[in-house]
């Protein structure tokens, strides 16, 4: 009874508060204070590359001297801009001063969430296929599902990382300081370090990112291009870079992007959707082994999500590695163990506590969200921010994290479609789910694989967070049992698989020359 009265009292207070017009607005993004890196990372130009042959694969021509008329004219242009900064320009400066790598990571997560919706069924039955040549249609392109997203995060992050290492190489080769440090009468609107400004890291990031995103999210071309231009302008207005710093950075960024896009065009993704004959053959192989094959729970039945994503080229693993690391088989669909595990799922969802439901929802990351890899980027960003990492060090974190998760996606999908194992609701239709049911086979759990790979890499990069990452990994895994969409075997196998996959990225990271 006391609770009831308390709640009534609370409601009355709430009524008063809203009636007096309290602010209900919600701030949409993480706050990023102006970046003041704890280290400038002068050796980053020598850290191991992902795809580039070396930091000087693309040559950045020597800049004009700081006493040349061209350069002095550039400084004058900045002085003029700074004399008339509008509040909108100040907001742009403030926004981008939080760090380009982190800002683009937020933007990328937003794009994934926007495009992570499956096509709606046609009235006459069946589903249309998203078409890269008609990205504005219904369905929109892409359907940024978890593995599409894992690959997108990895390409953007890895390309940014190689581009920034190359930029660092040229920065310290030419050692031209930023206009705020170099010129008279130009002030640093935001904190500006002693990092050489030629070529501009902001322009490198904007150039490489915009090219990658144009390919991955073509329908968002306009806003991506505007964001990128804003980032470069902010660098100029704030006294961080001159026009030539920006031009050199933009060109370098675009060149590096071309290298990554060439790989993306031939990595197998274009065939990942497979053909009906191909995925029916996968199901038939499972049936031939005497197992029950997965079928779609969507109504009408939907083709499986990218059944050949397991053949897409991984970052740190060869196709042979992918097969070698594949988990052993799940419990046979006719075994007692399967029966027991099915019973556990049924009991769990039928008696779900609210704290278990909260965990299932917290880690759901289903359709319409930034996906499980996006969730781990979300987790990582706060550590990157709090560590005050330079742009190149931040890019390393996201590159290593996202390459490991993309490898996890490839490995997990290869296993899922090799075993083609049914979801609990298929084995027992009385099992109803607390979250949406993913449209692909159960074993092993993608959440567990992604999360174990992510937690391993983040624990290496941020040892102080290791305990927390492990807890999150385990929570993400068990959330799928609470949701009623995975057996315990799926979760255990996925976790072990993700840990094995992460060792490939960790072996690279331990020898990449980054202190």
């Amino acid at each position, binding site marked *: 009874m006391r609770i009831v009265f308390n709640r*009534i009292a*609370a*409601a009355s207070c709430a009524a008063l508060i*809203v009636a007096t017009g309290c602010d*209900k607005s919600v701030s949409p993004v993480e706050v990023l204070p102006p970046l003041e890196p704890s280290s400038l990372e002068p050796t980053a130009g020598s850290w191991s590359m992902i795809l580039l042959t070396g930091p000087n694969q693309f040559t950045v021509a020597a800049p004009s001297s700081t006493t040349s008329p061209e350069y002095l004219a550039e400084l004058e242009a900045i002085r003029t801009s700074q004399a008339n900064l509008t509040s909108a320009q100040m907001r742009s400066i403030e926004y981008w001063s939080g760090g380009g790598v982190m800002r683009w990571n*937020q933007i990328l997560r937003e794009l994934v969430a926007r495009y992570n*919706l499956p096509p709606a069924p046609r009235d006459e039955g069946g589903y249309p296929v998203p078409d890269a040549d008609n990205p504005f249609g219904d*369905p929109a392109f892409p359907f940024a599902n978890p593995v599409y997203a894992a690959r997108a995060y990895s390409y953007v992050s890895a390309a940014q990382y190689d581009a920034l290492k190359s930029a660092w190489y040229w920065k310290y080769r030419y050692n031209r300081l930023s206009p705020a440090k170099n010129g008279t009468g130009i002030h640093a609107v935001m904190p500006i370090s002693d990092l050489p400004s030629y070529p501009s890291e902001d322009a490198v990031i904007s150039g490489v990112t915009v090219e990658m995103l144009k390919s991955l999210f073509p329908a968002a071309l306009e806003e991506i291009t505007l964001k990128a231009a804003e980032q470069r302008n902010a660098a100029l207005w704030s006294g961080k870079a001159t026009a030539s710093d920006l031009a050199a950075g933009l060109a370098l960024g675009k060149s590096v992007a071309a290298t990554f896009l060439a790989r993306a065009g031939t990595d197998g993704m274009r065939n990942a959707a497979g053909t009906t004959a191909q995925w029916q053959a996968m199901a038939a192989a499972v049936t031939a082994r005497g197992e029950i094959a997965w079928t779609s729970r969507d*109504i009408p039945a939907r083709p499986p999500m990218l059944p050949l994503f397991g053949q897409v080229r991984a970052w740190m693993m060869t196709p042979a590695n992918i097969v070698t690391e594949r988990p052993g088989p799940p419990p046979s669909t006719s075994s007692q163990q399967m029966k027991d595990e099915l019973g556990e799922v049924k009991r769990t969802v039928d008696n779900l506590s609210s704290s278990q439901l909260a965990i299932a929802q917290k880690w759901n990351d289903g*359709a319409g969200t930034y996906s499980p890899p996006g969730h781990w980027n979300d987790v990582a960003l706060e550590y990157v921010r709090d560590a005050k990492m330079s742009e190149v060090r931040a890019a390393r974190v996201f590159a290593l994290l996202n390459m490991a998760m993309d490898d996890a996606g490839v490995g997990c999908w290869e296993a899922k479609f090799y075993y083609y194992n049914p979801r609990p609701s298929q084995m027992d239709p009385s099992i109803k789910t607390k979250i949406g049911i993913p449209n692909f086979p159960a074993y092993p759990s993608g959440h567990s694989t992604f999360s174990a790979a992510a937690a391993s890499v983040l624990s290496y990069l941020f040892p102080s967070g290791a305990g927390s990452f492990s807890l999150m990994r385990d929570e993400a895994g068990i959330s799928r049992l609470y949701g009623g969409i995975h057996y315990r075997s799926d979760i255990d196998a996925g976790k072990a698989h993700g840990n094995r996959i992460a060792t490939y990225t960790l072996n690279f990271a331990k020898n990449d020359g980054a202190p």
Partner: protein
Amino acid sequence: MLRSAARAVLVIASTAASISAQTPADGLMMPKRTMMAGVVYARDSWREYWEGTLKRTNGNVGRVTTQSVTFAAGYAITDRIAVMAAMPYVSTHASQGVLSDMSGIQDLSVSAKYKFASVATESHGAFNAFVVGAAAIPMSDYTPDFLPLSIGTGGSRAAGRLILNYQTASSWFATASAAYTFCNNVRLNRNSYYTDGQLYLTNEVSMPNVFESSISAGYKRGRIHIPVSLTQQRTMGGGDIRRQDMPFVSNRMNFTRVDGSVAYALPGNLSVRFGAGHVLSGRNVGQSTTFTSGLFHAHRL
């Protein structure tokens, strides 16, 4: 849809009382020191819904049915002031697909109704005006993040309502009413969501306020009360359901619906009420049909 559960409660609020009682939304007032208690069963279901403005069905839910049992009570302190409370138990069910049913105690609403003007004439009937203040608060930790199967929107609300009522000398009446509901923000169990064209990296959802207006007319004489009404709800913000997305708690849920009911006073201070309603048009809601039946007891203290 999607707030079919929450909307069911709105409907209940306007059916959860009878001729010898009154509701927070009608033009009636119980005589002083009248105590009313009742129970209302409602069944609301839809197969078609509006995804934004696009009307469609969805094989993954089929027909969504929301049933509720609401306990309601009221007391007239004077001939001009009455207080009321209602609390429903709600359960939802999808006829197709794998999504789980949800059920539980939903929100307690309390309201106070004040008749601030009353003009009666011998030949031209009577005119009455009321204001109502109401508040609602969730009574269990049900999730608002599983629409269309959530049992409610999970946030506290406060509302103010103005009611104008005209009663002819010959048993006919007409009522116009408008209400504005302030909705508090709600919190989800996840730290990010996408709605209205934007990714939000927070668990807090800004809930749009709601404006509702209705006109009703009918016949009331002796033991019989037959109102029909047209109600329009306009949500003052919020995004549309995206193509093939699940509905979201802060979606812009608009609808126009028609309702009719018959109430009859039985001997022994009992009364019964049967009603039906149907959504004519909407946005981000199901095109639902609702049936209600209620039993009430009232007596003077």
